[in-house]
């Protein structure tokens, strides 16, 4: 195969992978602090897409305002989901919370089905994200270049929050021990809400960029990327933020390259993320950057 095509596909894979990474971060952080696999997290992507759609196509806001408002509103949805659905179960068995998360997922999907209907909507792509650039006669779509840059900028901001602010430190401390965080005079419920807010904010960001990549959105659109982002979080080592980002890149690049190199297998592309996950877990059950599943370290 032609080198330029491989290069194009690589950029494409990194771009897709950074979306998985953005969503995977929410899975890994929530798991880190309350040991819950939040299966409704993929649906927050979808929520973010519809909020942005509403902002641009129905309220005629400038795209950046629509995007920002969508991410903030999605963060709020994440916080409300936690307060209403998960918080009452904080001391219940983990399986109860897990089943609740699946329930929340169905609830979000069906609510949006009722509000927006099942017919896919065309996501309006702002012109800055359209078009392509030509480098030495290799053509890269703008969106494929912008996505990973945006993802990395937000990852760096997140790492800054986690390591340099007191609430970020409290999140990391919480992933180790809840009661000891309490006796420091820290309101643990507030810290957990902030974790949901950050995770949902990033999921909405991932959703919006997903919608610009595949601009027909429907209420079930968050399921598959959500599952792959979950696979990415586990692959990178659940509980580890950099692991989640890394897992996302690996799954995105693998998926794209498999399709590019073996076009006959394109129909199975969704299976590869999971096959790859199973393969890695056979050799490293804690994931790439994971150490001890019972001990947080993000």
């Amino acid at each position, binding site marked *: 195969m032609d080198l330029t095509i491989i290069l194009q596909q690589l950029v494409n894979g990194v771009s897709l992978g950074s979306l998985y990474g953005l969503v995977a971060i929410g899975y890994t952080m929530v798991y880190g602090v309350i040991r819950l696999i939040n299966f409704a997290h993929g649906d927050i992507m979808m929520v973010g897409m519809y909020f942005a759609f509403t902002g641009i196509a129905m309220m005629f806001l400038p795209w950046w305002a629509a995007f920002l408002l969508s991410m903030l509103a999605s963060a709020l949805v994440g916080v409300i989901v936690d307060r209403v659905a998960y918080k009452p179960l904080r001391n219940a068995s983990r399986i109860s919370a897990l089943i609740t998360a699946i329930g929340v997922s169905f609830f979000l999907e069906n609510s949006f089905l009722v509000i927006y209907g099942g017919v896919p909507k065309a996501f309006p792509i702002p012109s800055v994200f359209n078009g392509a650039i030509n480098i030495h006669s290799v053509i890269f779509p703008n969106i494929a270049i912008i996505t990973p840059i945006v993802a990395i900028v937000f990852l760096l901001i997140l790492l800054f929050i986690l390591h340099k602010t007191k609430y970020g430190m409290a999140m*990391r*401390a919480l*992933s*180790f021990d809840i009661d000891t965080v*309490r*006796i420091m*005079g820290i*309101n643990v419920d507030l810290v957990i809400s902030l974790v949901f807010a950050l995770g949902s904010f990033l999921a909405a960001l991932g959703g919006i960029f997903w919608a610009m990549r595949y601009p027909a959105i429907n209420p079930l659109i968050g399921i598959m990327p959500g599952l792959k982002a979950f696979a990415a979080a586990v692959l990178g080592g659940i509980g580890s933020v950099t692991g989640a980002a890394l897992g996302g890149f690996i799954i995105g690049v693998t998926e794209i390259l498999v399709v590019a190199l073996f076009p006959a297998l394109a129909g199975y592309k969704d299976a590869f993320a999971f096959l790859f996950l199973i393969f890695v877990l056979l050799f490293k059950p804690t994931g790439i950057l994971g150490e001890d599943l019972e001990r947080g370290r993000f």
Partner: protein
Amino acid sequence: MLKVKDLNVYYGVIHAVKGISFDVPNGKIVTLIGANGAGKSSTLKAIAGLVKPKGSILFSDKEIIRHPAHEISKLGVALVPEGRRVFINLTILENLRMGGFNKKISELEPLYEKMFELFPILKERAHQKAGTLSGGEQQMLAIARALMSEPDLLMLDEPSLGLAPLIVSEVFDILRELNKQGRTILLVEQNAAQALKLADYGYVLENGAITLEGEAKGLLENDEVRKRYLGED
């Protein structure tokens, strides 16, 4: 400073603390001694707000029994938990930052300096992960972390646990020094000899009830205490 009355702690059907009452007067060191499972940790957790007890806990004449743990901490009660529980995935400085979570930024620097003066080992290793510290050093960090909130009442749950005798003396010397500076201390210990030597007043806890109390010096002389907790015949 602290007045506990008819305190009861239940874990489901287990009645771990059975209606105990005790006082911790301002500026004093009071110790609760007792064997494994006597209910010492449950008592401290109840005061700190980590378990929901029944009865009455007056702190500076304020009823705190229904307060959430973080509010109790803000009122001026700090707990150094059993097994130290430093945040091993955070650096030493970050651990101290968590201890002083509700302090203003401008208040932090002098507090760090104070802690480093009290525990010089922490200064050298300020930017290392707390998980790299030895058991004794982690105990020092746990105490420093608790002091960062400048608590009126410092509670410690078995600070001597798993430490070499030399380190235990060092820790107890620091507690004595803190008390001299005016800090009120509630100390829970199995190491009765050391605890009674340090304390002003002591209570003996057995199966969730107080069976003996008195001036610490007196308890050290008490035959019952000598036999059961100091290993003498």
